[in-house]
C-alpha cells in the first residue's frame, strides 16, 4: 500500500507541488442494532482509497479516489496539485509548515480480542438479552442496544520521507430504555448516552458488564415519568463523569482548536472565545482545573501512534492550575502561531482532508470521591448522562440537558428530578469548579460522533473525567 501512496505523492510533485503527502486507508466497520429484542440492523462497510494533499506556494489542494490502480492514484496526486493552483486565485499568506521527525514505522492499537472475529451470534445475543431485561420493566416502550467496531489500516507517505503504517482498533456500544408518557418521553442509557467507545478490541465491551445495569436503567426511565421537574434556580451542580466529559468536549476541546482560533472554521463550526495573545495568562477556570490533550492514553478513544500528518502522538498541557497554556494544532496552524506542532490532525477516512481534531482532552483527577462531594454539599443538584447539548460558535454560552437528576440536601442524595438542565458561560462555569473526585473514579469517556469540517467529518475523541462540583450554576432552565 505504501507504493500507492508514493505514486500519489509523486503525481503531485511532478505537477508542481512543493510538498505532498498521501494516505491509503482501508477502513472496516460493523454496526449491530437491536430494538425490543429484534435485530434491526447489521451493517458492515469497507471503504478503501487514497487521499493526497499538495502544497503549492500558499495554497493547498486535496484529491481522493477509491480507485487504487496506478493510473488513478497518480492522477489523484496531479489533481491535488491542480486544485492547489486554483486555490491561489484567492491566495492567503505564505503557508509555513512546521518540521516534525521523519518516521518509517508501524504502530498498532493494543488489543486482545479482535472484535471482527467474535461470533455475530454472541454480539447479537448480548443486545437481545439487555433489551429483554429492559422490556421486562413495566412502562418501557422502547429498548435498544447497539455495538460498533472499527478496524482501520492507514499507510501514510510524505514527500519528506515519512512511511508510517498504523492499525487502529476501536470498539464499544451501549443501550437505552425509553418510557413514553402522555406528552413526554424519558430515556435512560448505559454506559452513556452515545454508548461508550474506546480503542481496543472486544474486551472493551466485556469490561462494561452490560447485563448488570439494564434493570436499573429501565426502572429509572419509567420512574422519571412521575418524577418532579427540576426547579429553576442557582445552586451547586454535581456532574457525573460522562456528562462532565461532554462539558469538556464542548466548552474546552473545541475552544482550544487552533484552526478555530485562527478563524479557519468561522463560517461553520465557529471560532473561539480564546485569543492567542492571552495564551499563558488567560484564566480558564479554578485552580482545580488541569486539562491535558494526551493521544497516548491506553484505551482512550482519541489515542493513536501518529496523526495524519506523520507527527508522533504526544501529551500537552492545555489548562494548568486554571490558566490556559496550550492548543490543539497541526503542522501548518502551529507554524503560523509560532508553536510546536501538536500532532492533532486527523481525517475521517481516505476521502477527507486532515484537520485539527481533539485527541484525548481530559480533566486530570482531584482528590476524594463522589461520596465525599455529596457529603460535603448542603444544597444542590446531581445530574447524570447527557440528553441534549448546545453551545454558541465561540464556545462560551452553553446549555446542557441530562437524562436524570436528583436533589442533594444536607450531604445526601434525595428525590429524583426529571428534565434537568443547566446553562452557563464557559470561564465563569469552570471558575466555579470547587470539588473534583480522584483517580479511582477517573474514566476515559469516548465520544464517537464529533462533527466538524466541510464536507462533514466525524471524529472519535476521548475525554477523561471524574465527578465534579460547580458552585452557583443556573439549573432547571425551562422552555
Amino acid at each position, binding site marked *: 500500500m505504501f507504493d500507492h501512496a508514493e505514486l500519489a505523492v509523486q503525481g503531485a510533485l511532478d505537477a508542481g507541488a512543493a510538498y505532498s503527502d498521501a494516505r491509503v486507508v482501508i477502513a472496516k466497520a460493523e454496526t449491530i442494532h437491536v430494538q425490543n429484542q429484534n435485530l434491526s440492523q447489521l451493517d458492515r462497510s469497507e471503504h478503501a482509497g487514497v487521499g493526497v494533499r499538495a502544497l503549492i506556494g500558499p495554497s493547498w489542494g486535496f484529491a481522493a479516489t477509491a480507485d487504487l490502480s496506478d493510473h488513478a492514484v497518480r492522477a489523484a496526486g496531479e489533481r491535488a496539485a491542480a486544485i492547489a493552483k486554483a486555490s491561489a486565485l484567492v491566495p492567503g499568506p505564505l503557508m509555513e509548515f512546521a518540521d516534525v521527525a521523519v518516521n518509517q514505522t508501524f504502530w498498532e492499537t493494543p488489543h486482545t480480542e479482535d472484535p471482527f472475529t467474535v461470533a455475530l451470534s454472541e454480539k447479537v445475543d448480548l443486545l437481545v438479552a439487555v433489551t429483554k431485561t429492559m422490556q421486562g420493566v413495566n412502562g418501557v416502550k422502547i429498548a435498544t442496544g447497539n455495538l460498533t467496531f472499527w478496524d482501520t489500516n492507514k499507510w501514510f507517505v510524505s514527500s519528506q520521507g515519512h512511511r508510517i503504517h498504523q492499525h487502529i482498533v476501536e470498539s464499544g456500544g451501549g443501550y437505552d430504555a425509553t418510557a413514553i408518557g402522555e406528552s413526554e418521553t424519558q430515556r435512560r442509557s448505559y454506559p452513556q448516552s452515545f454508548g461508550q467507545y474506546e480503542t481496543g478490541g472486544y474486551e472493551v465491551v466485556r469490561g462494561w458488564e452490560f447485563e448488570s445495569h439494564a434493570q436499573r436503567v429501565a426502572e429509572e426511565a419509567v420512574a422519571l415519568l412521575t418524577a418532579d421537574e427540576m426547579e429553576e434556580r442557582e445552586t451547586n451542580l454535581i456532574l457525573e463523569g460522562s456528562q462532565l466529559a461532554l462539558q469538556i468536549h464542548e466548552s474546552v476541546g473545541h475552544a482550544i482548536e487552533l484552526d478555530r482560533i485562527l478563524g479557519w472554521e468561522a463560517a461553520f463550526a*465557529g471560532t473561539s472565545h480564546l485569543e492567542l495573545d492571552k495564551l499563558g495568562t488567560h484564566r480558564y477556570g479554578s485552580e482545580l482545573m488541569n486539562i491535558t490533550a494526551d493521544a497516548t492514553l491506553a484505551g482512550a478513544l482519541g489515542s493513536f501512534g501518529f496523526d495524519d500528518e506523520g507527527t508522533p502522538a504526544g501529551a500537552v498541557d492545555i489548562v494548568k492550575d486554571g490558566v490556559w497554556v496550550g492548543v490543539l494544532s497541526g503542522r501548518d496552524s502551529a507554524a503560523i502561531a509560532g508553536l510546536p506542532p501538536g500532532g492533532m490532525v486527523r481525517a475521517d477516512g481516505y476521502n477527507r482532508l486532515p484537520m485539527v481534531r481533539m485527541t484525548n482532552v481530559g480533566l486530570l483527577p482531584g482528590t476524594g470521591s463522589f461520596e465525599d462531594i455529596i457529603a460535603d454539599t448542603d444544597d444542590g443538584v446531581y445530574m447524570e448522562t447527557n440528553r441534549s447539548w448546545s453551545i454558541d460558535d465561540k464556545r462560551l454560552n452553553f446549555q446542557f440537558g441530562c437524562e436524570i437528576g436528583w436533589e442533594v440536601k444536607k450531604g445526601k442524595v434525595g428525590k429524583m428530578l426529571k428534565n434537568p438542565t443547566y446553562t452557563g458561560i464557559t470561564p465563569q462555569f469552570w471558575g466555579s469548579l470547587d470539588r473534583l473526585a480522584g483517580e479511582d473514579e477517573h474514566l476515559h469517556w469516548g465520544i464517537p460522533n464529533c462533527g466538524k469540517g466541510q464536507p462533514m467529518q466525524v471524529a472519535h475523541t476521548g475525554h477523561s473525567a471524574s465527578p465534579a462540583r460547580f458552585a452557583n450554576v443556573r439549573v432547571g432552565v425551562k422552555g
Partner: protein
Amino acid sequence: MTRHEELVETTLALIAGRADAEVYADVGTLSLTRFANSFIHQNVSEDVAEVTLKVAIDGRVSSSTTTHTTPEGLAAFVDAVIDSAAQQPVDDKWPGIGNPAEYAIVDHWDEATADADPVDRAMAVKDFVDAGEGMLAAGFCQTESQGHAFGNSNGVRVSGRFTTAAIDGIQQSPTSAGSGHAAGSRIGALDAGGVGALATQRARDGARPIDAKPGEYEVVLSPECVSTIGIFLNAYGFNAKTAEEGMSFVELGSQQFDESVNIWDDATDPRALYVSFDIEGTPKRRTDLVTDGVTRSLVHNRRTAAKVGVASTGHAVPGGDVFGPFAVNMFIGGGDSSVEALISGVERGIYVSTFNYCRVLDPKSLVVTGLTRNGTFMIENGKITDAVTNLRFTQSFISALGPGNVLGVGDDARFADSEFGPLLVHAPSMRLASWNFTGGADG
C-alpha cells in the same frame, strides 16, 4: 450502460440466486472549495464510487457498503454479505424487497455544474470575498455530480443522476458577522457576489450590537432558520418510525399548525434535487405532510410501511432501519409577503438570520434549545433598529408554528442552509407571534 448501472448489474449477477437482494450504487464527484480570512484554505475533490448491498435469506438480513468496485472486489464483497446474513437470527419485521414500479421522469442535472472545475469554484469564492470590501470572508462553494442506480432480484431496475451547487458564507467585521446563502442544481444560477453583498450588509448593520433582555418576542425568521425548523419536524415528527413508537408530535388530520403552513416532499418538483427513487428502489412521489395547517401524512420506508399496512412513500435513507425514513426534498410553502413587509408589521420583535447548534430537549413536544448567529436585529415599529448580540432560545417548534402563531409567510422561498446542510429544505421567511429567548450572550 453507465458505470453506476453496471455496478448494480455486476453485483446482482454475483448473487446468482443465493438470496433476495437489493443493490444501490452511486458514482460521481463531490468538490468543495473552502475559504476563511478571505482566502481559500481548504480545497478538495473526491471521486465517489460505492455499492450498498442488502440481502435476505429466509428472513435473515445483512447489509454492507464497499468501495471495492473491481470485479474481484465485488465478488468477495457479495460472498461476505451472504455469509453474514446466514449467521443472523430471522428478522421477523423484514418487509421483503420491492416489485417493479413506474418512476417519474426526473433529471435534476446541469452539465455546467457537472463540468465545474476548481477554477470555477475559486471564481465564485472570489466574487463572494470581493463583495466584502475589506471584511473577513469565510464559507464554501460546493459542486456535486452523481449517478445513482438501484436494482433488486425481483427485476427492479432504475437509475438517475443529479447535480448540486451551493455558495454559503459569512462576512465578518471586528464586532459582527452576517451570512448569505444560495443553492440549487445549477452553478450558473448562484449569484456569489449578491450572496456576499447580503452577508456584508448584515455584518455592517450588526457592527454595534446591544444586549436584548431575554423573554418572549415576536420574530421574523430567515429561510435558513425556517429550514432548520423543517429538519426537526422531519426527523422527529413526520418520520413514521418515531410516530409508531409514540415519540412524534404528529396527529394525522389535526390542525396542528397555523393554516398558512404547508409542507410537502416532492422529488418531481422542477426545483427539487436528487433522483426519483429511494435506496429501496421505491418511486418517490409528492407527499403532502401539512396542508393548510392540518397534518396529513408521515413519510415511510418499506419497514415502517409494512408495520402499519401502507405503501412506502419512497423515503428510505441510509441508516433508516434504525433512525427511520426522512424526506430529502422538503418544501415549506411560501407566501406573498416581502421580507420588508413581514418586518413592517412587527411593533417590537427580533429578526434572526441564522440558528446555531439546535438540539432537542424533548422529542415529542419538539422543545429545542439553540442560539442565534450571524445577524440578529431588534425590530421596533416596523423597522430594524439595533443589532442584538446572539441570544439563546428554548422553544417548542410545534407551538411556534401553531394555529394563530404564524403572522406572515415570505415570498422568498429557496433552498436554505439549515444547520444540517444546504440542500435539504426549500423554505421561506416567516413572521411568528412568539419566540422564547431564554438567555443572552452573557447567559
